[in-house]
C-alpha cells in the first residue's frame, strides 16, 4: 500500500450501512432475502402505491437496539422522517430514515489495539431498490436505460456513522473489520460485504500534520471489501495532498473507487447536493423503547468479539491478536470445548488457526467434542503433530472419531523400542554425519530427525527422536 506523504495527516470518518437479518422488510411483510427473482418480494407498501401504510418491524427495532448497546450508545426515543428525492431506486420518491432524533447516539468502538473511535449515531432507515444500468459498459452516465428491482426496497438498515477519528486506510480497515465482527455477533448482520449487506462510504480529507482543522472532504463510495476500503483511502489521501501541494483546492465531491485502476474518480459534486426536504413521516408513530424492553435486549446480547478474544487469549496464554482468526471465524466453541476437556488450549488455538480456519465452511460442521479429543491425543503424545494434522483433515472432510481415524490409518504412537531401532539404522547408514553431530554440529540433529521421519513416514514423534539423539550423543 502506498504511503501518504509524511507532512500530511489523513482524516477519515466512515458511514457503514448494515442490512439487518430480519425475516421481513422494515415496514411491510415482504420477505427480506438476497438473490431472489427480481420484483418477487414487493407489495403496495414497498412499491409506494397510493393508500398503503407502513407498520414498523419489531425485530428490526430490537436489532437496532442491540447494535446501539454493543456500540455503547445512548438508546433514545426516536422519530422517522421522509427524505425526499426523485430517483427510480425508490418508487415512493422518498426514503424513510431517522433524521434529527435517531435511536442510537454517542457510542464508541474499540479497535483491537485499544484505540477508541467515537460513534456519532446509528440510526434506522430503509434500503433502496437495485438499479442495473444497461449499455455504455454499465456506467450510469453512458447507459442507454436502467432496470430496477425493488426486492431490496424497504429492507431494514442501520447506518453507523463514526466521528472523523480514523487516521489511515489501515485503521479504517481495522474499524470496519471490528464493526463487522460486532454486527455478526449481535445477530444483526451476516457481514457479507460482497453481497452488499455491509456497505461502507468513507469521508476522507487531509490536513498538514499537527493541525487541528479539518480540510475539505470527499466521500469515497464503492468500497465493497476491506481491501478496497484501505487502498481507496490511501490513494484518495495522496491525491488530495498532491492537489494542495500543487497550489490547487480540493473540491467537496463524491468519488468512486476504481479498483481496476487504483484510483478514485469524481462523481456528483457535493455543492449541488440535493436539499432533501426532510419532514416527519406522518404515517409512523414515534418509537420509545421501554426500560423493560431495553433490559431484555441487553440481557440477550451474546459476548462481543473483544471479550471473546480476551477469554481465549487467557486460556491459551497468548496475546489477543493471536486468537483473532478463531473469533473472526466464530470458531471459539472448538477451543472452549478442548479447554473444557482438559486439553492444551494453546495447541487448540494453533490447530484451529492453522488447519481448521483454512476451510471455514467445513469448520462449522466440525464436532467440538471430536476436536477436543484430537487435541488431547496430540497433547499427550499419542499422535505426532504430522499425524494429528492428517486426522484433522479427515475429520473436516467427513467427520468422525479421531481415535477411529487414527487406528484406520495405522497411526499408533511408536513405542520407544521401535523408535530406537529405526534411529540405530539411521546412525549406521550415516556414520560421517553421526560423527559430526557427536563433535557438536547441532545442525545434524535436524538431519537425523528427518531420516527417522522419512523411514517411519511421519509416524515418529520428532520431539521423542530429538530426546533420544541427545541421550545417544552424550
Amino acid at each position, binding site marked *: 500500500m502506498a504511503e501518504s506523504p509524511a507532512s500530511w495527516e489523513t482524516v477519515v470518518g466512515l458511514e457503514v450501512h448494515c442490512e439487518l437479518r430480519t425475516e421481513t422488510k422494515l415496514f*411491510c411483510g415482504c420477505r427480506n432475502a438476497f438473490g431472489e427473482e427480481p420484483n418477487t418480494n414487493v407489495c403496495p407498501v414497498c412499491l409506494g402505491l397510493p393508500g398503503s401504510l407502513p407498520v414498523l418491524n419489531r425485530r428490526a427495532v430490537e436489532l437496532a437496539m442491540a447494535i446501539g448497546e454493543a456500540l455503547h450508545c445512548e438508546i433514545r426515543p426516536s422519530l422517522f422522517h421522509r427524505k425526499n428525492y426523485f430517483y427510480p431506486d425508490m418508487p415512493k420518491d422518498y426514503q424513510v430514515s431517522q433524521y434529527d432524533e435517531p435511536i442510537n447516539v454517542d457510542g464508541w468502538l474499540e479497535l483491537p489495539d485499544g484505540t477508541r473511535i467515537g460513534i456519532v449515531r446509528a440510526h434506522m432507515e430503509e434500503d433502496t431498490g437495485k438499479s442495473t444500468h444497461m449499455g455504455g459498459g454499465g456506467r450510469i452516465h453512458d447507459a442507454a436505460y436502467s432496470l430496477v428491482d425493488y426486492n431490496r426496497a424497504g429492507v431494514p438498515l442501520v447506518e453507523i456513522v463514526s466521528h472523523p477519528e480514523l487516521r489511515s486506510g489501515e485503521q479504517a480497515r481495522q474499524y470496519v473489520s471490528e464493526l463487522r465482527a460486532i454486527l455478526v455477533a449481535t445477530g444483526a448482520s451476516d457481514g457479507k460485504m460482497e453481497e452488499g449487506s455491509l456497505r461502507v462510504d468513507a469521508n476522507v480529507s487531509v490536513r498538514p500534520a499537527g493541525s487541528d482543522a479539518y480540510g475539505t472532504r470527499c466521500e469515497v463510495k464503492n468500497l465493497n471489501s476491506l481491501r478496497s476500503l484501505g487502498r481507496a483511502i490511501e490513494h484518495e489521501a495522496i491525491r488530495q495532498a498532491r492537489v494542495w501541494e500543487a497550489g490547487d483546492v480540493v473540491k467537496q465531491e463524491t468519488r468512486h473507487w476504481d479498483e481496476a485502476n487504483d484510483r478514485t474518480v469524481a462523481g456528483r459534486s457535493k455543492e449541488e447536493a440535493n436539499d432533501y426536504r426532510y419532514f416527519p413521516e406522518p404515517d409512523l408513530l414515534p418509537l420509545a423503547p421501554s426500560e423493560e424492553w431495553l433490559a431484555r435486549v441487553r440481557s440477550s446480547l451474546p459476548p462481543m468479539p473483544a471479550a471473546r478474544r480476551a477469554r481465549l487469549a487467557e486460556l491459551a496464554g497468548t496475546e489477543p491478536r493471536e486468537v483473532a482468526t478463531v473469533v473472526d471465524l466464530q470458531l471459539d466453541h472448538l477451543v472452549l470445548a478442548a479447554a473444557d476437556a482438559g486439553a492444551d488450549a494453546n495447541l487448540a488455538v494453533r490447530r484451529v488457526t492453522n488447519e481448521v480456519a483454512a476451510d471455514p465452511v467445513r469448520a462449522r460442521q466440525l464436532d467440538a467434542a471430536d476436536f477436543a479429543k484430537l487435541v488431547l491425543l496430540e497433547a499427550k503424545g499419542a499422535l505426532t503433530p504430522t499425524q494429528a494434522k492428517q486426522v484433522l483433515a479427515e475429520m473436516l472432510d467427513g467427520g468422525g472419531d479421531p481415535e477411529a481415524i487414527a487406528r484406520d490409518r495405522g497411526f499408533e504412537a511408536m513405542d520407544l523400542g521401535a523408535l530406537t531401532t529405526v534411529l540405530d539404522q539411521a546412525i549406521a547408514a550415516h556414520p560421517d554425519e553421526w560423527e559430526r553431530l557427536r563433535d557438536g554440529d547441532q545442525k545434524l540433529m535436524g538431519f537425523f530427525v528427518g531420516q527417522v521421519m522419512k523411514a517411519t513416514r511421519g509416524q515418529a514423534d520428532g520431539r521423542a527422536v530429538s530426546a533420544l539423539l541427545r541421550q545417544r550423543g552424550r
Partner: protein
Amino acid sequence: MPERDRITSTDVAHVARLACLDLTDEEVEEYTVQLRDVLEYADVVAALDTAGIPPTAHPLPLVNALREDEPRPSLDRDEVLAMAPEVENGRFRVPRILGEAP
C-alpha cells in the same frame, strides 16, 4: 412574522425545482402570496410561550406501533409489472438516469 422570515419568490422557485414542478413566473408570484398567507396562520401559534413544552412529534398520544417479523404474501409479479409502462427481464425499465443515487 418578521420580514426576514417571510417566504420569497426565490424560496418558492427553489422548492418547486426540488419537487420537479415546472412553474411560470406568474405562478411563482401567485404561490408566493398564497404560501405567505398560509405561513402567517402559524404566527398565531408562534406567539404562544412554548418554553419548557416538548415538541409534539405526532398528534396521536401513542408510541411503538409495531408488527411481528412474520412474512406475508407479496404481490404477483406479473400483476406488479403490468402497472409499469416498460418492463424488461422481470424488472422495471426506466429512462437513462442522469446524476447518481443520493
